[in-house]
């Protein structure tokens, strides 16, 4: 199999990822890409509490994830890669690794961002980052759960 979902979600691993997407895709592993969580064993344990024992959770820094993507893509199990912001996931696409689709699953309100969808708030810089990814041939859609419509990037930036 391969990595079935590259997701941007500032809640990282939570119900929508584990139950919503995890059940639908029958995932065997989830990669949490976050430099701060990678440096905090205590936070890693919190995220691990939400992952069933039959799903492996891997925590990686951005640099570690960029290096290990080919390995995960060759894994016989189905995997999800989740990062908390646009910049982190964009960094994973910059080392020659082929990412075909990016799922924007949840980016919430902060100063400087404005609402694009109910669950997607983007600054102009973040919107431009997503636009640049699309220009490179990556399909960018927003979809919080599998049963929702995948909203094309053009409809929300």
């Amino acid at each position, binding site marked *: 199999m391969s990595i079935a979902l590259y997701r941007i979600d500032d809640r990282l*691993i939570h119900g929508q990822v*584990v139950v919503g997407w995890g059940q639908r895709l029958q995932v065997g592993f989830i990669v949490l890409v976050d430099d701060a969580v990678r440096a905090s064993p205590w936070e890693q344990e*919190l*995220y691990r*509490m939400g992952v069933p024992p039959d799903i492996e959770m891997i925590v990686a820094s951005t640099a570690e994830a960029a290096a290990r993507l080919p390995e995960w893509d060759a894994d016989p199990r189905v995997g999800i890669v989740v990062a908390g912001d646009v910049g982190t996931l964009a960094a994973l696409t910059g080392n020659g690794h082929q990412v075909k689709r990016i799922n924007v699953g949840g980016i*919430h309100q902060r100063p400087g961002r404005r609402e694009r969808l109910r669950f997607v708030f983007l600054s102009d810089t973040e919107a431009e980052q997503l636009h640049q990814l699309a220009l490179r041939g990556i399909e960018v859609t927003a979809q919080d759960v599998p049963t929702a419509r995948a909203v094309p990037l053009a409809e929300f930036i």
Partner: protein
Amino acid sequence: MSSPLRGVIVSHAAVAQALTTAVANITGVTDALVPVSNDGCDRDALFASLAAAVGQTPAVLFIDLPGGSCLTGAATYAHGRPDLAVVTGVNLAMLLDFVFHRDLSPAAAAERAAAAGSKAIRVPAS
């Protein structure tokens, strides 16, 4: 005498509000629980909601699931604070017990609530 513990229920959607209402309806106690929903919240927004709900009172944070954004946000908020304790898997039975035992320390109240909630999960004979 120190003030009685506050219970803050942290949940997805409107679960926390529904549990708060149910406890008030059953017990008549209306000042023990405060609901917090994670709707539309990233971690910073959840922290702000928790700060408003907790105020200056020692509290137990009741979380709906043993994983997910409610837990990670609340546990991080409470980390290193002896005036706060966290319980996951909130149910009505543990809240009904909690509202009548709010003179404990946060850690002791959390342990008691977890035990009360666990005892309520049963499969009645059919």
